[in-house]
């Protein structure tokens, strides 16, 4: 039962990674790419970590996994903000149809 759920989470995570990469390649400007990437990636990693945590042999391992996710989330969010702010300040215009 646990195996089934964790498999589900892992596959869903992989799907989000794929979506993130597609977004990085296909979206028209920096800001949309930023959006695609950070959202999809962090959710993807989150799902994967949930899947792996279900399999974890001890609580400390699960804790470490969650810590890793928290760090990636924090860094991803801050860096995305810093990149976007820098780009705006430097006059990189958002894409308009």
């Amino acid at each position: 039962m646990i195996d089934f759920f964790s498999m589900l989470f892992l596959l869903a995570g992989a799907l989000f990674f794929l979506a993130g990469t597609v977004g990085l390649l296909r979206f028209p400007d920096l800001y949309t790419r930023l959006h695609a990437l950070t959202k999809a990636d962090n959710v993807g990693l989150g799902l994967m970590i949930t899947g792996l945590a279900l399999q974890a042999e001890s609580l400390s391992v699960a804790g470490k996994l969650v810590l890793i996710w928290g760090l990636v989330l924090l860094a991803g969010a801050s860096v995305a903000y810093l990149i976007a702010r820098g780009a705006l300040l430097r006059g990189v215009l958002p894409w308009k149809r």
Partner: protein
Amino acid sequence: MQMLYISLALFLLANLAVGMWRVLRGPGVADRMLAAQLFGTTAVAILLLLAEAAKSNALRDVALVFALLAAVTAVAFVKRAWSMPEARDID
């Protein structure tokens, strides 16, 4: 389960290879940094999958250090990269 971990790791690696295109293409400094960010997250995921496949706690430590250092590199890049003129692209 082993098989799933390994195939997902393989899938993510392929994903990463495709993402390399954005680093090459750019066009701007920010796009390249963004792609590097993707590399870091994907590598963390691959490491965790391999760690689970090998039941190795040490590999989770590697993933932890990865996650931390990716943030430091990203900050270093963001802090430094914006101060550069766009035309510094000459070898």
